[in-house]
């Protein structure tokens, strides 16, 4: 935004101080994240910037922490566990969240605001409280699955965590899908019906392609939620299902290794990639919206 030629001294002053303010706020938000990135390339073993690093001398930087992160079984298992949990949790969250959003977008559903509030609550209630509730609830479920159904302990742990993470992911899917449904033209589904398409075909051929951006961004949020989640997993998880954040948390407590920072850097990059995808999807969605007739 360029300054107009008629701007007064006060306006000029505000114009430049506003830019300064924005820069400071941006720095405040982002600096802590970027501080760890050079450190993760450190050649040393400690959580501090060394003299050598600041003078760029030989051996001050190395990729050894990345090597450790990608080869050490403790970390590779954690990565595998993270994906193994995040992917099915995301799928469950997307299915349930999309269905819920579609149901709640119909005006004739009684008490839909209340239902919506309840479904969104995992996002609002402090995580530790959800986690405690889940701990008691899922320990009953776990006992039932282990004792009555006869599943192995490892599988039961896994199911518990996947279900818990699905619950945390559902609100994001509901919110993003509801947002795309707000602009959804109901006469499109009516048109499909008038041409002979049943509800299922209408859903997959007409509704789904149009709300897909919302579904995908909800899925990304749900995935990140599961991927970054540390509170619930420490309470209801166990050694068998330790995920990346769990491993980092434990690592910080027990053995302060710079590998944690290498992993953190990789997670930051993954998050940035996912957010970039999200932004591209949003633009695509806006383009389709902008072109819809009427």
């Amino acid at each position: 935004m360029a300054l107009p030629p008629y701007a007064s001294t006060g306006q000029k002053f505000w114009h430049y101080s506003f830019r300064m303010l924005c820069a400071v706020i941006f720095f405040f938000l982002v600096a802590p994240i970027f501080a760890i990135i050079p450190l993760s390339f450190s050649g040393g073993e400690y959580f501090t910037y060394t003299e050598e690093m600041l003078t760029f001398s030989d051996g001050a930087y190395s990729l050894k922490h990345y090597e450790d992160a990608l080869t050490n079984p403790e970390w590779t298992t954690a990565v595998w566990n993270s994906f193994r949990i995040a992917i099915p949790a995301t799928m469950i969250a997307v299915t349930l969240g999309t269905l819920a959003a579609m149901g709640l977008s119909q005006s004739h559903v009684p008490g839909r605001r209340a239902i919506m509030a309840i479904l969104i609550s995992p996002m609002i209630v402090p995580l530790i409280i959800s986690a405690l509730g889940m701990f008691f609830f899922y320990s009953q479920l776990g006992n039932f699955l282990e004792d009555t159904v006869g599943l192995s302990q490892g599988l039961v742990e896994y199911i518990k965590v996947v279900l818990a993470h699905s619950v945390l992911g559902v609100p994001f899917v509901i919110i993003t899908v509801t947002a795309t449904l707000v602009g959804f033209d109901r006469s499109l589904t009516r048109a499909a019906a008038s041409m002979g398409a049943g509800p299922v075909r209408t859903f997959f051929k007409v509704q789904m392609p149009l709300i897909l951006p919302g579904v995908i961004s909800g899925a990304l949020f749900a995935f990140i939620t599961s991927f970054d989640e540390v509170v619930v997993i420490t309470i209801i998880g166990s050694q068998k299902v330790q995920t990346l954040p769990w491993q980092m948390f434990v690592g910080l407590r027990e053995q302060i290794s710079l590998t944690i920072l290498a992993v953190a850097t990789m997670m930051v990059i993954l998050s940035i990639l996912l957010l970039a995808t999200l932004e591209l999807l949003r633009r695509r969605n806006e383009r389709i919206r902008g072109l819809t007739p009427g």
Partner: protein
Amino acid sequence: MVTETSMTDSSAYVAFDGVQKSYDGKTLVVKDLNLKIEKGEFVTMLGPSGSGKTTCLMMLAGFETATHGQILLDGVSINNIPPHKRGIGMVFQNYALFPHMTVGENLSFPLEVRGMDKSTRQDKVQRALDMVRMGEFGSRRPAQLSGGQQQRIAVARALVFDAELVLMDEPLGALDKQLREEMQYEIKRIHENLGVTVVYVTHDQSEALTMSDRIAVFDDGRIQQLAGPSELYEKPETSFVAQFIGENNKFTGRVEELVGDVAHVSVGDTTIKALAVNCGGKGDLSQLSIRPERVTIGELGDNVVDAKVCELIYLGDHIRCRLDVLGNDEFVVKVPNASNQKVPEVGGETSISWSTQDCRALDHAEVAA
């Protein structure tokens, strides 16, 4: 024009039989609707917004359920048939083209649903596009088309699967005036060529008069009158219809006596003779309705009254005179711009007259404002 007498139960293609609709269980949006539509007919449901016309169309399409009564299609009750099994084509007000599909895919959709193979689909899609003169546009997306073009595609899509009944819900409402008139003739032409039955909803009376075989005028959840365009304009049966269709001069008076089919109605101190259509009996209030083009300046007709000229508007082929007649200063007379025609002056006094046959004594309704 299709006459009332040709309608029998067996020939009715679509029939509403005592249909009522209420959304909240208390107020009826549609009150006791009875309507029979013959095969191949073009019937328009005309009325102001909130009159129940769109609700009726939606009940026929299956998107709303009737609270009471039966809707019959080809003699079979369709109350319990879901919309996607009725095989009724529909054109929506906002076109409702699928934005993520090309025009060709939009038209192909109902054919895919019916399991037709690819070459049949292509043939039918092309024929439908040619019919609406959009043959070149199969690979475009709806967003790349103008409003009028989208409307043509929507019409083609409703017809491509050989539906025998096509419903249109104010399909031309979003178009500008010129395009709207062009599309009216286009739809009329397609209707005549294909012989499909069309049920059309609009609030635009000129659209209804141009296109329809018969028009059902809706008000307050009821059909006020069901007739062909000329009958509706020339012989309105209720004050609502007289007011809603075309221009109308009205007086409110009390029926003094009925002589044959002529009612003597007193408006103030003057007694006017009018055709008794729907005016009740002696002592009832009645609204008199006279079309502006049936009133002449001078003392020629059966009814002669004094008038004061309030305003003259020159319109080329005729001059529109606003007069103060019997306390009604909104009385309009259209004076033809002919060489021997005497044109009154603003502020002057004159006499106007009309024939008893042209003045219709109708029900007295406050709603017709």
